[in-house]
């Protein structure tokens, strides 16, 4: 028998194939389309609110008037507590549990794809799609905001007005910060996804986790627990709209999400490495 040499399919081809597969899924297309609606609906809602007396609402909504570039940031923070974790969970659920359900995970492993590499490909798919979804919301939000509210710069919560370039910088920063937070949730969802063959279980468990975390964050009696909860870092992300930019809290919440990513991916790797298919 001739000596066999270990061979692997090119990684780039595998990653492309993964993205192509995600984007071909009707659910993905519908999901992305509905995400585009979020900034549009939020913008229209605020537009009517601005017409009335006083500020359009609490927090960021108060400075939206004549300040359209705040809308992408406002929408991302609006979507972060529930919508974006759900989106991340869906992709994570389809990535492993969904493939197992259709029997395609087995096919990939026979190809063969190493299990850790497979996890890497899946994580890449989820991460890329999350970044894409967040960017899409911000993009649609920026367009909607400028159309509805106008504004060439960005008024910060601190009362200073940023130039257009600096405003774009803040939007990009928000995109990155929010994306990393969703990655934290999605990594844990991927770990759950590695343990089951039912995508719905993954989505339900992830969303239940996010909601429970949010509820735990409300009780001040549990404030010793709050620094560990990824959800507790989300409110502080509004720091991105202060001037000068306070970086400490932002670093901290990003590091917190990074810990969740490390834990989630490690658990997923552990499960995949020992899993029977």
């Amino acid at each position: 028998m001739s000596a066999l040499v270990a061979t692997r399919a090119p990684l780039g081809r595998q990653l492309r194939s993964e993205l192509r597969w995600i984007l071909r899924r009707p659910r993905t297309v519908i999901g992305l389309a509905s995400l585009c609606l979020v900034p549009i609906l939020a913008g229209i809602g605020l537009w009517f609110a601005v017409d009335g007396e006083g500020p359009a609402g609490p927090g960021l909504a108060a400075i939206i008037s004549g300040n359209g570039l705040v809308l992408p940031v406002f929408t991302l923070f609006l979507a972060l507590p529930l919508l974006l974790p759900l989106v991340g969970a869906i992709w994570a659920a389809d990535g492993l549990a969904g493939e197992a359900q259709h029997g395609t995970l087995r096919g990939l492993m026979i190809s063969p794809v190493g299990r850790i590499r497979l996890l890497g490909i899946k994580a890449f798919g989820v991460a890329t799609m999350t970044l894409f979804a967040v960017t899409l919301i911000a993009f649609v939000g920026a367009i909607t905001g400028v159309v509805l509210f106008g504004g060439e710069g960005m008024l910060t919560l601190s009362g200073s007005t940023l130039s257009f370039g600096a405003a774009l910088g803040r939007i990009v920063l928000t995109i990155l910060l929010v994306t990393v937070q969703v990655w934290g949730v999605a990594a844990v969802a991927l770990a759950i996804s590695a343990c089951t063959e039912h995508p719905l279980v993954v989505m339900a468990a992830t969303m239940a986790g996010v909601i429970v975390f949010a509820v735990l964050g409300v009780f001040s009696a549990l404030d010793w627990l709050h620094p560990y909860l990824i959800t507790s870092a989300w409110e502080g992300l509004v720091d991105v709209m202060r001037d000068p930019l306070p970086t400490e809290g932002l670093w901290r919440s990003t590091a917190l999400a990074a810990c969740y990513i490390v834990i989630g991916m490690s658990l997923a790797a552990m499960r995949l490495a020992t899993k029977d298919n």
Partner: protein
Amino acid sequence: MNRRRVTVVAAAVGVVAGATGLGLLAMPAGAGPAPVLPDVSAEALVESVLNAKPAAFGGTVDVDNDLGIPAIGGVPQLSDGASNLRIWTDGAGKLRVQLPSGDSERTFVDDGQTAWMWDSAEQTVTKMPHGSFEHGEPDLSGEPKAAPTDPVTLSRQVVAAIQEYSDVTVDGTARVANRPVYELVLTPKPTEKTVLREVRVAVDAELRVPLRVAVLTNGTDAPAAQVGFSELNVGPQDASLFAFTPPAGAKVTEPEVEKPSAEDKAAAEQAFTEANPQVIGEGWDVVLAARVPQDALTGLADLQQQGQREGRWQEHGQGEDVDVQGLIKQLGKQVSGAWGSGTLITTRVGGVLIADDGRVAAGAVPEQVLVDAIGQVK
């Protein structure tokens, strides 16, 4: 087999690393090893603090408040819990203070000629003459000693006033905002009746300015209140920080401070002059006493309203009439004696006694000292 085991071990290490990271993040910023600094006597340290020149700096002040004071309108830095404020000064009268709260912010900028106050939640700008913040607004919290504003000013007052009634010692060194500090400890002399156990002031070894003040009360290890820099950059600050241009959509108001009016700030100031404030006792046992006219308390009521709006956004102008007396009664307990009757609000660092006829006494002292003091109010 081996590869699998390696993966599992690596993954386990990953989980542990992630969990450790969470733990590290949750822990308060590590103090690090105490720096080695030349010995300094307590007296010399106090002296150098009192003579320190104001420096230009920018930083973040963390406020940990466990005083047991009920929530005070709209400024979380005064309420129980942890919060922070950001402060910049050029050391020569220009000042910028930002009070973030939730997803809104108040910004105070004093550019040397004009002082501005911006409130993002209301989209309003208040324009005032230069120096308005230096002397401060009338403090309505009833806890002037504990109200954290600028630690530099605060500590100087504390050190200077209390020195003769206290044992002053230097308790080693530490790090605050990553700068080496001496820990100056002020302990009330045994004869003092105060409820405070000690006040710890961290003095910057180089600049000789207080970077952190902690108030400790009898019976607990955790400070009842601590105000300190978590981040401090000493040196000239960006000049643009001390400039403020009211944003396009904001409503700019210019309150006239001199003229007495029903507006909260002015009314409260007027009330203070009318109240005949007096200091009773000395040292740690000092009690601040006054007679407060009823309408001065509406200022407090407005602040309370604002506080509600911070928590849950409400329609404008709702709940104009707040029963201030009723509110006070809810917060404290009813007491009476030869001096009359009133409400006693106690916190971990002292108490406020508000008599029904408007007399007020406040201090970092036990109930009996307050009662004695209110009897002396004319």
